[in-house]
């Protein structure tokens, strides 16, 4: 700090920083990209290990053997499901009760803000059925949850049946120290949300539900099971939850350990692990897996029933059975054993899972990148914003500095008023508020006047407001404060840069992936934008790097990564559905990505747009 208290050296340092500002920024950007891509390179990652002692070395033998019975149950359940035209509540209650569980039901209803066209639902009414296996000699203070969604059609019958078979087997064991809740939820996430809100007696999303009758204390961990075929080739682990929250890494380690023990093929993001990290293919594979995780985490939605548990500080993961064309098959008994082992290990827990990481990226199931390794990639991007802000600050202060030296005292440009910054700030945020509120509230009007469905109305209104926002600020700017001064845009840009840095920094702390994706698209253009650039070209580039286009690129990249590439038209349709899903996720489960983009990121981007058209 002696560096800063010495005016000469301070001057030298700022001089260096302003002179070399652009090269440093470019280097930082490239370094960030390289660093991020390097994360997937195996020698740079850590091998995952079990941190929790209570779940350490396996001394138990899995004895679950009623896989055949589970398959028979699945058929029975399927038949009853068809007969009931939905969840066979009475049959499930009877089935659970006959297995010695305390059975309760919960009915819920939810009117969606607008119809969900992906899942074809608007007015949702359903019933959750759950049975509690009371642990002997335990005082109902701790519980584990196993959940299986009752999906429409024939899917997931095997999961529900396996759940029942496990319940029957578990009931006959004496070693349970925590109550085990077997939950069959209807309407996938909506049912889970209703059950969780009922269990914790909260209401954060305006769901209507009947209060729960039976509880079992604080839930320590949850596993969600999705299984649609009698045999599977691999098990996929899904970790990404609401708002990019992840369960404790030990849960993933536990799953991996049991897959290894029982010889089950396990995948993450649907990708098998490869051992050839030193080849280009091996690296690409790991990078793809990690990129998929980043994309999934960034979108902030819950990728399985487990995702909603995380809000309640319950570590949860979804296990999904995949049946592809591989020859290696695993039968349902083995999956039952795997679950038995995992639940027994979780039953041994003395404390909540807390030993291992909560912030990580997984390039494969056995390797992880911890927060300490991936944060520098974001930090390098954020530092660009700060450097540019410093540069502007120095430039803004420069005339004052020369005045002290006594060289020029003549034309001291009047410092820009507060209005020059405040006006675009307020206008762009009002646009953001409109983008947040209007699509859902104006849907009825839109449907009346245009030949579109409600869902299309919402999405198209959102896009219309987004586009209209581009026209708004730079027109009003001239009306309000007349000719924009050179100082004016610099102050505005300085404010906007710092604002963006804070926004992205906060986002990255909570959801690294979202922060990083936004940073990598927003930082280059926001750092370099000035009113003196060629207007048309810069405008095009800016629009192409705006948040909406980022979403569009993410859709294409995601489809590419899951090996289901789409044409432009299909991509556009997917993009529209992603927007509607984002708004729905916000309304139904409280996902924060839509409000973040609408209320903060988009207005911030508009401020830079304003600078481009500064006159």
């Amino acid at each position: 700090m002696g560096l800063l208290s010495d005016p000469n050296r301070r001057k030298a340092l700022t001089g260096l920083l302003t002179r070399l500002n652009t090269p440093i920024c470019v280097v930082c950007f490239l370094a960030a990209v390289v660093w991020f891509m390097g994360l997937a390179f195996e020698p740079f990652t850590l091998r995952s290990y079990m941190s929790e002692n209570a779940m350490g070395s396996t001394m138990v033998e899995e004895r679950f053997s009623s896989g055949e019975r589970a398959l028979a149950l699945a058929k029975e359940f399927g038949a009853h499901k068809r007969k009931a035209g939905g969840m066979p509540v009475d049959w499930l209650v009877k089935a659970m009760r006959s297995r010695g569980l305390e059975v309760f039901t919960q009915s819920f209803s939810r009117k969606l803000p607008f119809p969900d066209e992906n899942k074809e639902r608007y007015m949702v009414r359903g019933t959750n059925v759950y049975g509690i296996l009371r642990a002997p000699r335990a005082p109902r203070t701790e519980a584990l949850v196993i959940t299986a969604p009752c999906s429409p059609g024939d899917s997931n019958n095997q999961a529900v049946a396996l759940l029942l078979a496990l319940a029957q087997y578990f009931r006959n064991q004496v070693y349970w120290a925590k109550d085990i809740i077997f939950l069959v939820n209807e309407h996938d996430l909506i049912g889970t949300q209703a059950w969780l809100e009922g269990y914790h007696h909260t209401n954060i999303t305006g769901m209507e539900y009947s209060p729960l009758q039976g509880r079992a204390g604080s839930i320590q961990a949850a596993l969600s099971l999705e299984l649609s075929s009698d045999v599977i080739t691999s098990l996929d682990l899904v970790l990404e939850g609401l708002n990019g929250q992840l369960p404790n890494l030990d849960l993933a380690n536990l799953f991996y350990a049991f897959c290894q023990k029982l010889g089950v093929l396990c995948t993450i993001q649907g990708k098998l692990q490869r051992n050839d990290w030193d080849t280009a293919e091996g690296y690409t594979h790991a990078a793809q897996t990690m990129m998929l995780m980043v994309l999934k985490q960034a979108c902030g939605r819950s990728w399985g029933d487990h995702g909603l548990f995380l809000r309640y500080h319950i570590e949860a993961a979804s296990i999904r059975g995949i049946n592809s064309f591989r020859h290696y098959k695993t039968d349902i008994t083995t999956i039952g054993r795997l679950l038995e082992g995992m639940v027994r290990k979780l039953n041994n827990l003395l404390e909540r899972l807390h030993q291992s990481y909560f912030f990580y990226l997984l390039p494969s199931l056995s390797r992880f990148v911890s927060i300490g390794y991936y944060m520098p990639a974001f930090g390098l991007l954020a530092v660009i914003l700060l450097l540019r802000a410093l540069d502007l600050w120095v430039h803004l202060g420069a005339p004052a500095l020369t005045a002290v030296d006594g060289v020029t005292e003549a034309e001291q440009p009047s410092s820009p008023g507060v209005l020059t910054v405040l006006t675009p700030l307020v206008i762009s945020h009002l646009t953001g508020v409109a983008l947040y509120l209007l699509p859902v509230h104006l849907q009825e009007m839109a449907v009346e006047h245009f030949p579109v469905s409600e869902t299309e109305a919402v999405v198209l209104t959102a896009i219309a407001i987004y586009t209209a926002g581009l026209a708004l600020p730079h027109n009003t700017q001239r009306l309000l404060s007349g000719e924009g001064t050179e100082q004016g845009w610099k102050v505005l840009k300085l404010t906007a840069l710092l604002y963006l840095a804070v926004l992205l920094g906060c986002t990255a702390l909570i959801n690294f992936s979202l922060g990083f994706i936004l940073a990598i698209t927003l930082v280059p253009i926001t750092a370099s934008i000035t009113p003196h650039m060629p207007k048309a070209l810069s405008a095009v580039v800016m629009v192409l790097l705006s948040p909406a286009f980022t979403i569009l690129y993410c859709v294409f990249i995601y489809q590419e990564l899951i090996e289901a590439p789409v044409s432009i038209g299909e991509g556009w349709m997917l993009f529209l559905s992603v927007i509607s899903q984002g708004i729905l996720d916000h309304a139904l489960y409280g996902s924060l990505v839509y409000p973040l983009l609408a209320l903060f990121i988009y207005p911030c981007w508009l401020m830079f747009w304003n600078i481009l058209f500064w006159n």
Partner: protein
Amino acid sequence: SHYRLFPKSLGQVLSKFSVRELHISFTQGFWRTMQWGQPFIPSPPGAELWVWFHDTVSDVDGNWKELTNVLSGIFCASLNFIDLTNTVQPSASFKPLGLGNATDHRFLRYATLPREIVCTENLTPWKKLLPCGSKAGLAVLLKSEKLFHSSFHSQAVHIRPVCQDERCTSKAWELRQTLNVVFDLYTSGQGKKEWSLFKMFSRTLTEACPLASSSKVYVDITDNPEGELFELSPATPLLSQAVVLGDRRTYSVFDLSRAETFGQLRSLNLLLRWKGDSGDMLRPLLHAERYVAGFGLQTGEIHTVIYNNHPYRAFPVLLMDSVPWYLQLYIHTLTVTSKSRDNKPSYIQYQPAKDRHRPHLLEMLIQLPPHSMTEVTVQFERALLKWTEYTPDPNHGFYVGSSVVSALVPSMVAMSTNFTQDQPLFSSFVPVKEESSYFVRVYTEPLLVNLPTPDFSMPYNVICLTCTVVAVGYGSFYNLLTRTFQVDEPSPPLSKRLANLIRRMRGVPLLA
């Protein structure tokens, strides 16, 4: 001596600490009222201790502290963890059950340890208090390897002063030792619906304790008058009727003091074989449960739900809540609702907690409307503890003891109020004046609450970070803020200084 039957270890303790009444229970598991019905001897999970001292005691807290430490040794339990932070003095919920009518609750101390784990080391000292130990009589059945293979286990010791005879000329100590165990037919029966003494305890009865004046086994056969539900062997002609918890029950009695009870084999192995599905359990009239609502580590809400399942009678209950100080109750948020209407308690006693000194105590008398659910809610904030105050497993959470619901429940049948000396099992502790109701105490489940917990696994990182911030950040900023800056002339280069030196010697003007 006077200690022929009464254990000397306890007798000495009673006289040394001037104890008038002592009730202690150790429970592993939770009594499932909805499946098992009303408990005969209710007790909360963990350890519970409540003691009335004689009103001659001047330093009650001191006696209490010593007493808990001594009992801790006698019962091999962690009762020494009872201190002022978890002791309360309920004003209404716990009345003396023996002789005398002193009700000054300054001489009462009540504490629970919800975390206490009960195992064989607690059973052995408990068995030793019996006159015959576990060598003869019913106590031979109490083998820990079987007793702890159950769904519920509760052992208790109750000591109170009683009249020695009908006219109450002299006083005597009554010591009741109770053991309450629930076996799970489902897991241990392997599908067969039958149980026997041998199956449950891996022992049979062969004799009564020679010191016992009465030694009997009662089997409830109320629902089985014609033998259509289950078959009991060996058959016994002795029947006994009693009104228990508001219900008239019939029991088969096996008197161990009579030789014919043991039959030819000289051993008694009771065997019950079910013929069909057992009937539905009568819904208990009073039932209570509790849970924590909300999420996050800042605030929460305790919900206590009390059910009155009586079809047409309303009755009052006394609810007692003792909450540790680290849950800071917002007592202004206390609400009591029945049938979605506000229910104003007729009596509320609230003693706020003092941080690190005493817990919250909340007692309320609430009228329960017939066939209703009453919900008592109160919000709380989770305190941030000092780092030494966390338990070794802070992420497990912190326990809040059960709340206690005491009530006089309207009875379906008339109670006999005359105290029956010969059936101590069925005589309630609480002498009930009215014939039409009986006393019930229901405990809710304890709560496990997570408090904001620092990451203890990285003190090194924390120390490093703190030191760096203090040393580099604070130090240099302080330096920058307090120092005054002056621009001083740059010193001339060496060549110029040399030149000036020569010029000064020569007497010519110096260089600038």
